[in-house]
């Protein structure tokens, strides 16, 4: 390794002696303004929510394992589907990416911390409150919200005492996301290393910058939509009540104006993570870095003009159907550019298959399957058949579980040695990967067939003709759920492995690998030279 870099490390160690370390006790976490501590809290919170939402998925799949009603009442089943979605979307996937951003963006751009550290503390600590409120509805008269995570009126207005709690928890999640997004934008725009131009930024930083803009553009729209639900219920307005001259279909338009960019909020950072990992283990530079940036920007722009493809069946003029159908299909072009670039990065690379790379490869392959079923759903006349069937469930789980969740897992394995200073157990990591990949396909692939055969979603019972595939899916789901316990074991034993080097991986590039492992509490108090750091790795 180049001596410049080693010297840089020595300076960091010296600086650490002068500086105070973390506070002791619970105060370290409650009042933390340190991006690494807050990132850790986000990741632990997300993992907790992943297991709570996962437990709900287990209830759903147990009930669906065989035809007939066996374990739960249909009302409770509906609460489970609704809560599973809300918790996984807002509690597991989004905070996981914010956690990775908190940990890695300052390290990747050579900033000492996030730009707004106290707001950072706020945006994290709002989340446990929001989800405390949401989960408390399980114990309320009338139970949790059960009208689906999309909260369509007039059905959602029949939620019992839980209704205002649902609205306020969504408000809090929105506030948290907006603050997190503002923090990330300010950090990326104002705090990069002096010689790091925008187009020189790592892909993870780029995709997060675009995601953050999407967040501040659409989370307030969701807040507005649920506020209108609240005033319709309690303050006599009629935004969505037909009796007073409103239109419930308008809610669907406003919701999906938020909801479609939201799906890219959950996948763009995943693209970023994978774009960091594949070059490392292919030992080549990312193919077409700039085209990746433009593709991600195109996807973000297109995400605003395709929302009505979620609601082809509510009825719209023919021109509207054509527009939303073709605009949706257009998204396949920039997404295809990304897939092509990842494959081209691997082309003739010296690939090795450590756990992060395995998860990334599975991401590329399985996310593409989810993308293809998305294209099928985009065809307006065909969507009339697919709408609200298990085909839709198969589609969005393919893009979210082996898509977003696998990317998060890949990122966790990739950066874990930098966080803990020790290598995780590679054998156990690979076991986690293989069992997750086998079971995730066993769970969700049969759902394509169920949907094409006409099995509706959000139903606790089904016709006996669907029973075989449902049993297979339930076995897969239990297996996938148990596989995640292996990940917990990896995390719990993360500090027992051999010491990690600063660069951790043979092929890694970027500023985050110039700091010691584990990354000291304070890093980059003097701005680094990104160019010099990168040349050190050539």
């Amino acid at each position, binding site marked *: 390794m180049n001596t410049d870099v080693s010297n840089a490390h020595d300076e960091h160690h010296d600086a650490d002696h002068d500086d105070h370390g973390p506070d002791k006790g619970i105060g370290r976490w409650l009042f933390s303004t340190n991006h690494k501590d807050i990132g850790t809290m986000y990741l632990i919170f997300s993992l907790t929510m992943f297991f709570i939402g996962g437990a709900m998925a287990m209830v759903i799949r147990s009930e669906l394992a065989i035809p007939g009603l066996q374990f739960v009442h249909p009302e409770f089943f509906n609460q489970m589907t609704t809560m599973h979605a809300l918790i996984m979307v807002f509690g597991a996937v989004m905070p996981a990416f914010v956690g990775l951003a908190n940990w890695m963006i300052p390290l990747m751009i050579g900033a000492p911390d996030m730009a707004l550290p106290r707001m950072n503390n706020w945006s994290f600590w709002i989340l446990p409150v929001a989800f405390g409120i949401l989960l408390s509805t399980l114990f309320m008269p009338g139970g949790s919200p059960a009208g689906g995570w999309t909260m369509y009126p007039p059905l959602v207005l029949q939620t019992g005492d839980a209704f205002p709690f649902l609205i306020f928890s969504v408000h809090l999640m929105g506030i948290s996301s907006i603050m997190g997004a503002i923090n990330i934008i300010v950090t990326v725009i104002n705090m990069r290393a002096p010689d790091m131009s925008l187009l020189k930024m790592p892909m993870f930083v780029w995709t997060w910058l675009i995601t953050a803009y999407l967040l501040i553009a659409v989370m*307030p729209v969701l807040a507005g939509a649920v506020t209108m639900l609240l005033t319709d219920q309690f303050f006599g307005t009629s935004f969505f009540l037909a*009796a007073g001259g409103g239109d419930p279909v308008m809610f669907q338009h406003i919701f999906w104006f938020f909801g479609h960019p939201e799906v890219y909020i959950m996948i763009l950072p995943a693209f970023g993570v994978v774009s960091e990992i594949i070059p490392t283990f292919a030992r080549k530079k990312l193919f077409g870095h700039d085209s990746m940036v433009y593709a991600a920007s195109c996807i973000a722009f297109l995400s605003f003009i395709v929302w009505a493809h979620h609601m082809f069946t509510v009825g719209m003029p023919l021109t509207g159907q054509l527009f939303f159908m073709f605009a949706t299909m257009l998204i396949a072009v920039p997404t295809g550019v990304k897939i092509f670039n990842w494959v081209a990065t691997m082309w003739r690379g010296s690939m090795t298959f450590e756990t992060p790379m395995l998860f990334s490869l599975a991401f590329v392959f399985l996310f593409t399957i989810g993308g293809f079923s998305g294209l099928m759903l985009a065809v307006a006349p065909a969507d009339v058949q697919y709408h609200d069937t298990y085909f839709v469930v198969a589609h969005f789980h393919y893009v979210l579980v082996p898509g977003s969740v696998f990317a998060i897992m890949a990122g966790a394995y990739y950066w874990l040695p930098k966080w803990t200073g020790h290598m995780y157990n590679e054998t156990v990591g690979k076991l986690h990967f293989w069992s997750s990949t086998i079971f995730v396909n066993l769970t969700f692939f049969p759902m394509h067939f169920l949907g094409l055969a006409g099995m509706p979603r959000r139903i606790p019972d089904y016709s006996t003709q669907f029973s075989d595939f449902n049993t297979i899916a339930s076995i897969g789901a239990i297996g996938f759920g148990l596989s995640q316990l292996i990940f917990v074991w990896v995390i719990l034993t993360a500090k027992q492995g051999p010491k990690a080097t600063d660069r951790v991986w043979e092929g890694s590039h970027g500023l985050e690998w110039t700091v010691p492992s584990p990354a000291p509490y304070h890093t980059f108090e003097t701005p680094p030279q990104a160019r010099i750091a990168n040349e050190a790795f050539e």
Partner: protein
Amino acid sequence: MPENKENKSLVRQLLIVAAGSFAFGVFLLPPMYDVFCEITGFGGRTNAEAATVEENPDLSREIRIEFVTTVNSYAQFEFAADTDSMTVNPGKMYYATFTAKNLSAEDKVAQAVPSVAPTTAAEHFTKIECFCFTSQEFLADEERAMPLQFIVDPDLPDYVDTITLQYTFFDTAPVAANFEN
């Protein structure tokens, strides 16, 4: 960490964007949606513009008008069209009546909400007079007939031979109040 001016001004701009998109969602999208529906007939909105009775109605063309009535599950009413369907010539004025009965022992205010299908016909279907224009007050157990007066515009596209006019009858008391019953 220095709290620098650049950060503050960028934060201010981003907060304005967030507030702007909230305002966009609440104050701009609903009126825009209304305008969109009026222009396209989307959601079955009927034409609100004044229609003229043609001096020479198109007697060669016959359009079937079907009436569909629904009572919202929270409204304690009976509500039906007096005839299921009628055959009309474009450009001529027609009358139809609907009858509603309050089934509860309390006075109620009801509102009928119309919808026309297909949407391409919606802008060519003009109501001159309709009980759906205003809310309707019903005494306890009251039953009465309510008028509808309409014209089908001769510009109606050739391929439309049937128009369905659908009414849903609502109790205007808030949903929450209904739900508690």
